């Protein structure tokens, strides 16, 4: 921008020219922000509206009340998806949290090669779920992966066929998801461990606290806020998991590894039941809000407390 253009006042011009001159400014401030905010609100409201209409192949007007919702909720697909989400969400979050915390504590011991190790635990996060899902589907495939290797080595009774086992297949998703994202928990925990007040540690050392006591009594309690944040973000990831399952099991065998995001996609684009697909999407949103709203309330209380403290 040259100085001539941005010189504030051009004498002799009417006042409206000031508005005109500043138009690009207003456009740059407002258009991207409004576009982003408007699309989020309008798109959400539109999807909510569609979920109450009898839309199938194309969106149509009309009102069917909660019929789409009851149809989705009653479908076997959705029930299995919810069961899986509950199982996957809880085990994945607990295990990735535990893995992340253990890794963070180990890396916090001033060990050699910390940077390299940290990079190794974090690299899966940089790679697409499609790629990691594909690779894990090979490793866990009994005819190709770990089971085949062990068989070839001579232990022919070894069995690791979870990928094609209806009851166990969901655990393959858990394994791949932990591998993919416990590095995230590790990174946040490590940042938390490193920010523990040095005076606090010194005081505990003077009191004669050993490493175990130190972590249990002094260091770990300070990690609570980070733990809650990690839980919420991992739960959010679990609720919207799509690519990983699509690449790893594609919901199978049968519909054994179905998850809500796959049901939405199936209803919307494979069965062309837009109303039901939208209802399933809104249900996903409600599940997410069930996690996010308590978290927002907790954050609010925390903030108030720090202000008043």
């Amino acid at each position, binding site marked *: 921008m040259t100085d001539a253009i941005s010189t504030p006042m051009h004498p002799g011009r009417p006042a409206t020219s000031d508005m005109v001159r500043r138009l690009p400014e207003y456009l740059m401030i407002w258009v991207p922000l409004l576009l982003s905010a408007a699309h989020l609100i309008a798109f959400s409201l539109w999807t909510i509206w569609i979920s109450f209409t009898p839309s199938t192949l194309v969106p149509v007007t009309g009102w069917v009340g909660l019929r789409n919702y009851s149809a989705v909720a009653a479908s076997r697909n959705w029930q299995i998806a919810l069961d899986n989400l509950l199982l996957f969400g809880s085990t994945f979050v607990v295990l990735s949290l535990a893995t992340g915390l253990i890794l963070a504590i180990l890396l916090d011991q001033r060990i050699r090669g910390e940077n390299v190790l940290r990079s190794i635990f974090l*690299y899966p996060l940089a790679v697409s779920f*499609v*790629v990691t899902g*594909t690779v894990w589907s090979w490793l866990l495939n009994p005819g190709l992966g770990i089971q085949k290797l062990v068989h070839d080595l001579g232990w022919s009774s070894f069995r690791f066929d979870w990928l094609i086992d209806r009851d166990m297949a969901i655990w393959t998703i858990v394994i791949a998801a932990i591998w993919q994202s416990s590095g995230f928990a590790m990174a946040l925990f490590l940042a938390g461990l490193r920010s523990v007040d040095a005076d606090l540690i010194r005081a505990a050392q003077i009191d004669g606290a050993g490493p175990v006591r130190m972590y249990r009594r002094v260091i770990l309690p300070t990690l609570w806020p*980070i733990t809650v944040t990690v839980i919420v973000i991992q739960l959010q990831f679990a609720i919207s998991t799509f690519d990983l399952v699509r690449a790893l099991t594609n919901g199978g065998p049968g519909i054994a590894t179905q998850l809500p*995001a796959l049901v939405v996609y199936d209803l919307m684009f494979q069965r062309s039941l837009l109303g039901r697909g939208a209802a399933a999407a809104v249900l996903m949103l409600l599940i997410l809000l069930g996690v996010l709203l308590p978290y927002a309330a907790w954050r609010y209380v925390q903030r108030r407390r720090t202000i008043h403290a």
Partner: protein
Amino acid sequence: MRERTYAPSRILIYLVVSLIAAAWLAPLAVVVLNSLRTNEEIAQGSMIGWPQHFAWSNYAAAWSGFCVAETCAGIRPYMLNSALVTIPATIFSTLLGAVAGYAVSLWRFRGDSWIYGIVTLGIFLPQQMRLLPWTIVLRDTGLMNTLTGLVLIHTIQGLSFTTLFCRNYYVAIPHELIRAARIDGAGFFRVFWRIILPLSPPILVVTVVWQFTHIWNEFLYGVTFTTGQQQPVTAALIALSAAVADIPQHGVQSAAVIIAALPTLLIYLFGGRYFVRGLTAGAVK
């Protein structure tokens, strides 16, 4: 507590960390090794093994040889698609996010905190809530099954992240600096060009790394809004594994997987610091 060197507990720590690191690297090692093994070799044994001789031809086949549906152009056209979506969408969303983040943090206006709150909601809102509306918008604008359509989606959606990153960075800039410039008669853009932008490189690198990785790895929009030759590489990989399900070509597929993952892996390798910063910035608001 943190300075002993050769105690048995130290050895145990190294042992445990090395074992976990090996487990974390194993999938990568397996794909790299398989990308150098012939399909026959893999079929005779398992996916896990050392190449008998290095089958570099897998990479040539993966890049420009193998067939998906009727087209035999390898992964190259899809890599190009991904690049043509990711690069412009990263640049647009970063630039717009920088201006938006600057506007909401330093150029207070009526309702700014509301707008900002709604924009950042986009980080949490499930993609599934926006799939049908985007379908309608793309269809009505004639952008369905085009790369331009994907650029548009990623630019607008990316604003949620980029505005958040930039805003959190810009609020830390001393307001006196801005106030002084405004008293001197500098307008919105002049302050942005002369003061904000020169201070921005650290956050812009984080934003670019984050957006590039995100958009390159995105799958749902790619598979929903594009078909065939217009698909980004993530969607093409899924199509490839479905296409070769009958005649396994794991050597070629592994090479394709490596090529598809290479851009983000390289960014992670060289910009890991910024990647982690984006990760934590997205997490702790």
